């Protein structure tokens, strides 16, 4: 089925939770810089990556996201000092969870991208898109 979809011009849906101060700005910079980033990424701005509740991620998968991208400030550079540490722990935890749920943890990606790293944002999203394409669409059992 997935092979079919891949061939039928399937485009993955990637939900991205980006921190307002770093990655969101970085994404902005990527745009301003006219860099090519993944068009599959659907961005949700949060003030801090620490705001990302694991429920959101599960919900996003359930709602049809094939991959989820979380972008935060570099460790130590968090606008809110330590928010990204919590994100780090949640995502680590969640990856173990996702595997148990039978979802490839590669579909969840956490990256530290600062406001100045427009190029990194572009490169990472493209890479992530490629990865998701390789993994194929995410389907759910009933």
């Amino acid at each position, binding site marked *: 089925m997935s092979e079919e979809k891949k061939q039928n011009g399937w485009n993955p849906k990637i939900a991205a939770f980006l921190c307002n101060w770093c990655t969101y700005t970085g994404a902005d910079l990527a745009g301003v810089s006219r860099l090519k980033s993944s068009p599959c990424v659907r961005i949700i701005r949060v003030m801090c990556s620490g705001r990302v*509740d*694991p*429920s959101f*991620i*599960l*919900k996003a*998968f*359930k709602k049809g996201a094939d991959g989820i991208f979380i972008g935060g400030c570099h*460790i130590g550079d968090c606008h809110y000092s330590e928010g990204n*540490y*919590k994100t*780090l*722990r*949640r995502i*680590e*935890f*969640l990856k*173990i*969870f996702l595997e*148990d*749920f*039978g*979802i490839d943890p590669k579909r969840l990606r956490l990256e530290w991208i600062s406001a100045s790293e427009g190029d990194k944002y572009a490169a990472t999203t493209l890479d992530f898109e490629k990865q998701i394409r390789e993994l194929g669409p*995410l*389907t*759910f*059992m*009933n």
Partner: protein
Amino acid sequence: MKPKLALYWASSCGGCEIAVVDIEAKILDVADFFDIVFWPCIMDFKYKDVEAMPDGDITLTLFNGAIRTSENEYLAKLLRAKSKVMVAFGSCAYEGCIPALANFYDKKKIFECNYINSPSLQESSKNVFPQTHTQMPEGEIEIPEFWNTVKSLDQVVDVDYYVPGCPPQSTQIIAVVEAVIDILKNGKPLPPKGTILGAGEKTICEECTRERKEKKIKKFYRPQEIIPNPDECLLDQGIVCMGPATRSGCDALCIKANMGCRGCYGPPPNVLDQGAKMVSALSSVIDSTDPKEVRDIIKTIADPLGTFYRFSMAHSIFHRVQKMEEEEK
């Protein structure tokens, strides 16, 4: 004419039935007030009698147990049609409960386990799978079909109210019964549809008398690994307690017995997914910033999925495990 009451057990352990009887003398009021029309656990009622009832004839149905088989589903739909008020009674009907832990596997896997790999199987009965229709000399035997996924009641039929708990506490049952009698007797308005009856709006922590501090967890312990201080919050001591993400109502029963809350009252209001929320909360208080150490600390939790979704699996965002090994291959 007395209001009619039906009780049914779908996929459940029967604990909820016992809990109903456990309301002691109050059961007499129930018997007095209601005309019990269907209660297979207690008396021999026939499905055909129910089928014969007009729609909406039963005033109140307390349905416990999850939906595991075609029979469960049939009865759920039948009783829904015949009842004015349908109550998902107990954790199984409300959110899947222990039966829904089977959602970690699919039908095939479960059958393999039970009918091929089970060590108690006699050699002759190995590889014999239950069939829905079996031709016997006496005639065809029909047994219900086993569904792939365990569902909560509201995933099959429309449910008016929920009573959580595994089982619901007798005090809570009494309160519900009294309220129902009160409504029916005195014509009070019904609570809004979907209301969770017999439970609080807060979490177990509200009922827990232990002293809580700011949390910093370096390692998780299983209850047998340490002797917890009876006055201190179990989570503070590293024992996984679902209390913070569990609806109040049981009066912190397990915690009083030095056992971490297992979460049978389900998520508190507003919480989408009890397990995910607990993950979020616990990882917030893990005391480390090093990814490797974080992973190591997380690994000290035995069976995370079973721990966090012990009761709410069927009702969680994902319902069940998504991919089976066979499918991968």
